[in-house]
């Protein structure tokens, strides 16, 4: 169920487990990259689709729906899994992921995929678009909200800082970014590539209200995301501290799993770990 305010923390944890299992299967079968990025964002997406988003799977184009833009488009497998679990499409369509003739591309794609708000894959695109949506809702006095899920590596993109400056200036408190801060980007650790710290202070200096949470605690995520706006007149940033590859012990915190797909044998042990968690 999507936007089910009644979902318990246990329900959300169960959803997160299913999202991790779907992603592992999809990525292993399709032999694609980015399992680590999917696993780190699993709890965030479980809370968003399981509790926060006001959307209607029967009416994906409902004008008053909340919008979620998955700006870290490389975490596509788990995004498709999340919209399938939310009821936007049948679960068997997940088999189309990165498969010849299917419609579920290896980066988040809206064409032919109900529930996907916006196609991404090149980083730094989601937030400006989300800001445009939030500005439109605000000017029209509409109550729908905009959420943009971003990666930490994506914060290197200048376009994001243009939009962060803009959204602070225009007081878009109906706009929320959730940064999946898993500390690892494409080639190396964030700290060794382009240091983001102090990230929360940077965002505050741009006029945003910031809450730092454990991005694997559905309770903490849920509390932050049900307290919006964190401050009236300020856009919201949830800096979610996460672990790349979270849920599979031997994938956690390793650059390798930004790229390598699990082999069929590795899939079995990974699924067992996730399901036992």
């Amino acid at each position: 169920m999507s936007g089910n305010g009644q979902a318990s923390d246990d329900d959300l944890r169960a959803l997160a487990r299913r999202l991790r299992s779907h992603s592992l299967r999809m990525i292993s079968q399709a032999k694609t990259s980015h399992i680590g990025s999917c696993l780190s964002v699993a709890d965030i997406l479980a809370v968003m689709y399981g509790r926060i988003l006001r959307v209607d799977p029967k009416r994906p184009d409902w004008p008053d729906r909340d919008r979620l833009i998955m700006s870290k488009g490389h975490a596509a497998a788990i995004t498709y899994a999340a919209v399938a679990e939310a009821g936007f499409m049948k679960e068997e369509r997940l088999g189309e992921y990165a498969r010849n003739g299917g419609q579920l591309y290896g980066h988040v794609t809206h064409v032919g995929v109900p529930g996907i708000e916006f196609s991404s894959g090149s980083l730094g695109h989601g937030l400006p678009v989300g800001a445009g949506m939030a500005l439109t809702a605000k000017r029209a006095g509409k109550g729908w909200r905009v959420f943009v899920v971003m990666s930490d590596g994506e914060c290197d993109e200048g376009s994001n800082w243009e939009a962060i400056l803009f959204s602070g200036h225009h007081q878009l408190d109906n706009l929320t970014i959730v940064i999946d801060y898993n500390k690892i980007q494409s080639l190396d650790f964030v700290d060794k590539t382009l240091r983001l710290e102090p990230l929360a202070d940077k965002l505050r200096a741009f006029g945003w209200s910031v809450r730092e949470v454990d991005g694997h605690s559905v309770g903490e995520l849920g509390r932050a995301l049900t307290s919006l706006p964190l401050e009236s007149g300020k856009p919201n940033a949830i800096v979610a501290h996460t672990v790349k590859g979270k849920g599979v012990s031997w994938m956690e915190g390793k650059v390798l799993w930004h790229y390598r797909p699990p082999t069929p044998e590795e899939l079995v042990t990974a699924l067992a770990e996730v399901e036992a968690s």
Partner: protein
Amino acid sequence: MRTAFIQALNELADNDDRVCLIVGDLGYSVIEDFANRHPDQFVNAGVSEQNMIGLAAGMALSGKIVFTYSIGNFGTLRCLEQIRNDVCYHRANVKVVAVGGGLAYGNLGVTHHASEDVAIMRALPNMTVVAPGDPVEARLATRAVVAHDGPCYLRLGKAGEPVVHTKEPEFELGRAVTVRDGSDVALIASGGMLATSDKVARSLAGQGLGVRLLSMHTVKPIDREAIARAATETRYVFTLEEHSVDGGLGGAVAEIMAELEPGHAPLKRIGLRPEFNKTVGDQNYLKALHGLDEETVLKTIQQIITRSYGRVG
């Protein structure tokens, strides 16, 4: 053209609150009236073109008809991937407007010379590319892109372009306007070269030549039928544009003509040499260096016709 555009946009915005304008901190003495009349339909994105296009896409995907406004390259090349992915891929109803098409900002520098924009915008799927030829066409094109649901690129000149159309022509995106008809040579013009082409056409006609002048205001989707007719009903086709000869109007016409059945007229592309200017000059000065002034264009055409068919006329 700027004035004709903004006046038309103001009128459209009066009657349709979906019509919005986002500027990239440019448009001094042009956009103020719109901003005052339609504060809720206006945004200054600041000096941030990537964000400007992303915002426009987000607004358009929320039901707005969004014009972005900047100088030639800034609003197109700086944010090219945003135009490709956010606007074109999502078929967002965004109208990218560039002022200073070609060499309109001649002496400001090469950064301000928009000489490849049409080629690049034309390559994008779902994009309609319009380069009106005079203030009358600029007004009609502004209305037409609002009526068209989907991404458009509207390439304008600057200020003070002469009016070519003494009465309002029938204007349809993708359909060339026949300014004059004839069957010896065809001149196909886009953007600000329409006025020069019109004068050249008059001179050639005065020498007894039957001249067909087409205003190809829409470079994409281009009017294939009009090009095919020009190539088969006249003896030489010339394209004229204030844009690189590579990939713009001339490139588009060449693509169509290359795939026609054998036996059609040859083509000469008249436009900017595909290189960066090295000499300071205003628009007219630089155009003359590229052979785009009236006198040189006339001479070029006369020489080609004489060489190919004997004397002119």
